[in-house]
């Protein structure tokens, strides 16, 4: 069965993709929590220089040396930008935007100049092609295992160990760096370690999906997790699941439409994000719409109570405090009027007497309180009326 797995190209592509998703979600969640998502953009570009320089110095195109070189280059881009920003000669964003393009440009030029020997062209670095991972395998326990899969698996394990062992420290330094520093947890050092892990993960992933698509797996599922959950473990879980789902969905769609597999997988992380943007309990579109409707209903109930209070005990009461009057005088469509009346009845604010509505004690008290507040506000001298309150022009 295992043999069948390693001989099946789709299985290997899916497995590699899954490893990319898992390995990226781990540091990605913390990176996004710390507000450093764009640092990963700098790292992803800067590692190219590290890989090329390591190759020029050692001649190795894969293995530990390029990984080390790339990780160092990734760290150097972030630390270099921080140093530049600290000189206060430019803003933080400008410093990032200066350092990584310069490093990336140098990397691309070196690739251009050595193209014939390096067997690496600039497109591959940026894009990778997960569809070809099975071309490059090594013998392991009798099976031909793709190299990319091995490195990704190792990196995923390292990331999992890092997050598992330093869970408490990472959590504290991500949510409250000041407290973490005060307790002696060295959040700065931890941040550097995290960035180093991001660099290493980027190197492992770039063979499979390329550096820019790696960014999608690093950032987008993490943001999805944060939209949907409040707990750290849940965020991480959602990030991993949404990454895995994107791999499967992306593979299917890529085959169907005959497009880039890595690109489609990365694009599919956006589907998870889209769902989260709709369904997030705090800021999702659905939640916002529901909240807005609840607010609108509350405002109309208030209007209803004030309307009833204004006419209660007057000769026109029998005529004004009816459902028909609400529809006619307040210009409420019948279904809206009904909904408002039902809400008020449910909350025990009004009572029904045949065709007529009457305020309950709570309803009466609330209407009186609102009317008083309104009177007080109108009695204020005009310059003290807070700007933007309704009726302040009266």
């Amino acid at each position, binding site marked *: 069965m295992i043999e069948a797995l390693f001989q099946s190209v789709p299985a290997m592509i899916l497995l590699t993709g899954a490893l990319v998703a898992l390995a990226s979600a781990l540091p990605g969640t913390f990176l*996004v929590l710390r507000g450093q998502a764009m640092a990963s953009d700098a790292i992803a570009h800067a590692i190219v220089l590290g890989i090329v320089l390591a190759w020029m110095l050692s001649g190795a195109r894969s293995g530990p040396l390029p990984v080390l070189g790339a990780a160092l280059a990734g760290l150097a881009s972030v630390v270099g930008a921080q140093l530049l920003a600290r000189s206060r*000669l430019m803003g933080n964003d400008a410093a*990032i935007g200066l350092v990584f393009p310069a490093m990336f440009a140098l990397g691309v030029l070196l690739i*251009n100049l050595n193209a014939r020997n390096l067997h690496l062209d600039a*497109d591959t670095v940026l894009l990778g092609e997960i569809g070809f991972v099975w071309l490059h395998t090594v013998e392991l326990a009798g099976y031909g295992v793709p190299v990319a899969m091995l490195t990704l698996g190792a990196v995923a394990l390292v990331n999992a160990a890092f997050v598992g062992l330093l869970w408490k420290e990472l959590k504290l330094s991500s949510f409250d760096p000041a407290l973490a520093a005060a307790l002696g947890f060295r959040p700065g050092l931890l941040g550097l370690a995290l960035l180093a892990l991001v660099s290493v993960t980027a190197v492992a992933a770039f063979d499979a999906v390329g550096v*820019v698509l790696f960014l999608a797996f690093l950032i*987008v599922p993490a943001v999805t997790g944060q939209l949907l959950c409040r707990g750290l473990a849940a965020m991480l879980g959602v990030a991993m699941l949404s990454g895995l789902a994107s791999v499967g969905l992306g593979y299917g769609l890529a085959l169907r439409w005959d497009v880039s597999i890595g*690109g489609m997988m990365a694009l599919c992380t*956006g589907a998870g994000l889209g769902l989260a943007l709709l369904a997030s309990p705090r800021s999702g579109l659905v939640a916002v719409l529901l909240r807005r409707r609840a607010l609108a209903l509350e405002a109309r109930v208030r209007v209803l109570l004030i309307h009833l209070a204004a006419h209660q005990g007057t000769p026109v009461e029998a005529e004004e405090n009816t459902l028909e009057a609400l529809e006619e005088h307040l210009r409420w469509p019948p279904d809206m009027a009904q909904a408002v009346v039902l809400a008020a009845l449910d909350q025990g604010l009004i009572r029904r007497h045949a065709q007529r509505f009457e305020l309950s004690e709570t309803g009466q008290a609330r209407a009186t309180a609102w009317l008083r507040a309104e009177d007080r506000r109108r009695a204020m001298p005009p310059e003290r009326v807070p700007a933007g309150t309704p009726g302040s022009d009266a």
Partner: protein
Amino acid sequence: MPELSHTLVTVALAAALMGTLAGVLGSFLVLRGQALLGDVISHAALPGVVLGFMVSGSRDFLSILLGALLAGGLAGLSVQWLRRGAGLKPDAALGVVLALFFAAGIVLYSQVQGRPGSAGLQVFLFGQAASVLRTDLMAMALVAALVLALVLALWKEFQFITFDAEAARAQGLPVSALETLLGVLVAVAIVLGLALAGVVLMVAMLIAPAVAARQWVDRLASMVLLAAGFGALAGVAGAVISAQAAGLATGPVMVLAASALVALSLLFAPGRGLLARLALRWRARRALHGRQVLAALHGLELDHANPDHRSEETMLDAYLGTRAAPQLERLAREGLIRRERHGPEGRIHWELTDAGRARLGAGAADSDRSGA
């Protein structure tokens, strides 16, 4: 070879135009702290570039420009919506939009790959100056002139919202509309440079000239002019150098030229530059040491209760805890201390002059007198 130089002139002109525009609009971007938005817009233009190619069926300059503008604009709006509407942190919003738009670009590109007339992805990603035609140059010039005219016409407004958006709003300026317009102009500048610099590196052409210019001057007008000049210089240098050797992508060479300008500016700019700062620090340290030597001489006078006391150098060294020699010659040249041979062996002694006493300051002298 007249033909080669003809191409080279075209390319150099295009690069100069693009650099000028990038420098002008990059200045606003950098001052408003939105440098990374430029990065996102330029990466996000990729699907638009490919789409423009798909629709027109060729590498038609204007349709690619339009497609890129559309995608870049959409990306800018998405960032804004993700931040304000969905409440994402700014960097998360930027990262998400960059990654997803770029992925969409890759997917679209894999669709057109291999179609007749489709250029290699390398051209879109890293730029190729030689791909700019004479006819494109006219279109570029027209667009650039339009953008520059708009910036000039709305100069005061742009200046106001760049430095104090709140005050501009209070004055009744349509700040949101102006910000959007500025964003669109930045997107146009980015898109115009894509053919030369490529989507990945275009951001540096916006940021680097502006940051370099900022080191030399303190006024917006001079910064914009200087940035335009730096941008044009880097553009032309990149285009010409990359045209010399086959296989050199234009974008990286331009970016390295622009980065070199930044490095030079950071080092050598007067006042702000690192060398100027070092010099300032060195002068301050020298002045402090000199003052310490004067104070030591004065202190030894007080210790000996003799206003004309002369001190030996070794005495001064012991008093200061460091060697006084480097300062002594200089202070003597400035006339603050006097060298005298004194004592039975005629050894060199040092004494404060009146000028030295004056330099030490009336305040110090007063406190000494009251203490005595």
